[in-house]
């Protein structure tokens, strides 16, 4: 298992995909957190209470809006193996496929952590600069900021594990990119806004992976604000711990489905 983990780690860091995606993610996080922080600070100018209440939301923007990046990094780490057929030498080196797949899922944790830290730092920098430009206190040393950053790292790391599971299930590189983009950028946001507008369905929306991610990264995301203001209804949200569990469950379920799909399949 150690050999498999070292091999997976080397595979990951010897291709360019991970840092290309990471740089895109950092740029995106920097821009959105800067823009939102600036607009927000400008809008609430002088209201220190509002600033300290919503600061964690800004610093957790990556986890609530940009989780597509770690998910893609994790997914492509798996599908790239099939696309470039390096899965053949991998299975030749370790015919016990469960070892390979377990190593992939476990190796995603430290790799996802690196990406999560990079993304969260981008949000901290962007958010702090934005708040400062808007005349509000960035509050970088506040404990709630550190908590938001830590939870953002946790959520983003978990997303890369979910990505690995999804990659094992879908296998096709193009397929997994389209699936991840379509679900996270279109289906889920629409469904969450739609479902949380009605009291009878708002209980479902909170179990969506993106909603769970919000819950982990502070529970005060754009979506929960939207639903509160839009429907005058207290949107139900999971606690941090529940969010972690739901995200972990998605990772485990995808990984298990992928495992079942791949374990006996011929590699032709």
């Amino acid at each position, binding site marked *: 298992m150690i050999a498999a983990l070292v*091999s997976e780690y080397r595979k990951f860091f*010897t291709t360019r995909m991970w840092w290309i995606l990471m740089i895109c993610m950092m740029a995106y996080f920097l821009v959105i957190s800067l823009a939102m922080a600036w607009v927000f600070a400008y809008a609430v100018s002088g209201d220190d209470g509002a600033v300290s209440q919503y600061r964690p939301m800004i610093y957790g923007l990556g986890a609530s809006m940009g989780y597509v990046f770690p998910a893609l990094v994790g997914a492509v780490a798996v599908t790239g193996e099939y696309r470039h057929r390096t899965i*053949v*030498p991998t*299975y*030749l080196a370790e015919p016990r496929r469960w070892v390979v797949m377990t190593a992939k899922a476990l190796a995603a944790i430290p790799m996802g952590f690196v990406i999560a830290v990079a993304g969260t730092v981008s949000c901290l920098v962007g958010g702090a600069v934005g708040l400062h430009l808007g005349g509000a206190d960035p509050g970088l040393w506040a404990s709630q900021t550190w908590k938001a950053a830590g939870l953002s790292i946790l959520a983003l790391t978990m997303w890369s594990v979910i990505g690995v599971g999804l990659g094992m299930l879908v296998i096709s590189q193009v397929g997994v990119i389209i699936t991840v983009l379509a679900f996270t950028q279109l289906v889920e946001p629409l469904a969450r806004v739609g479902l949380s507008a009605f009291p009878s369905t708002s209980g479902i929306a909170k179990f969506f992976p993106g909603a769970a991610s919000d819950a982990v990264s502070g529970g005060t995301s754009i979506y929960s604000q939207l639903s509160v203001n839009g429907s005058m209804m207290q949107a139900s949200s999971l606690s941090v711990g529940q969010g972690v569990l739901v995200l972990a469950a998605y990772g485990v379920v995808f990984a298990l489905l992928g495992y079942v799909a791949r374990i006996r399949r011929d*590699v032709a």
Partner: protein
Amino acid sequence: MIEVDHLAKRYGSQRAVDDLSFVVRPGKVTGFLGPNGAGKTTTLRAATDLIRADKGRVTFDGQAYRELLQPMRHVGVALEPTAFHPGRTASDHLMMLAPYAGVDHRRCATVLGLVGLEEAAGKRVGGFSLGMRGRLSLAAALLGNPEFLLLDEPVNGLDPEGIRWMRQLLRELADEGRTVLISSHLLSEVEQTVDEVVIIAQGRLVFQGSLAALEASTAAWVSVESSEPEAVREVARRRGWSLPPDGAHHGRTVWIGGATSTEVAVAIVQAGIPLEGLSSSSSDLESIFLSMTAGQGGIR
């Protein structure tokens, strides 16, 4: 010793490998030959657990591939020269496999030198020629210093100089006591490299033995053209002559081994079977191979 024991694999209704048994001995280079689609690659994939055989098993000194704890240290496999991430360098590719083989960067450098890629160690595989990719596949196979080598079409993409180099390397590896199996769809390509041949067609064993035995046993292959090929085969069976495997039927031509053309002609005429044409194959190994594996392009 590699033992292939009653191996069978079908894809849908097609029998890719059909009850195939043969052994590969150490200290020799064995050619695994057959036309494209004969089942060579399927056999190698089943041997290494990439695909699941329907029946039978393949063992390396008695152990199945999946039972080997660090397979790279026992069996070196080079299956497809396309299985590289184009963005990785040659040495990155080996380093990614090194933990499984239990080796470090020094061994990676050694095998890169062995296959003549030391200059290209830091270059991305995306820019490699087919021949260089073949060499890198071989380097990966050699990484764990295995006693068995399974190489699928190893001379594919190599220039004449590369083929000579490969021949010498395989010879050295076999002389060290290793068991070397190389596949090819052209006998002529490996004729000067191999000691033994295993020939298959339509998933079945056609011949196993030394090159000399191949030449001797098939020197007298006679092709008979008749409107009653089944009757011709019946005559051959009665007389104890050899016939290609059932799969290798092709219309009106029947190949008969172990008899001279005169003996065959007399027997067929005596049996009252219409005889439309008869010729003996040349002793050219390649045409023997072709006649054994399907008769395509054989002597008319």
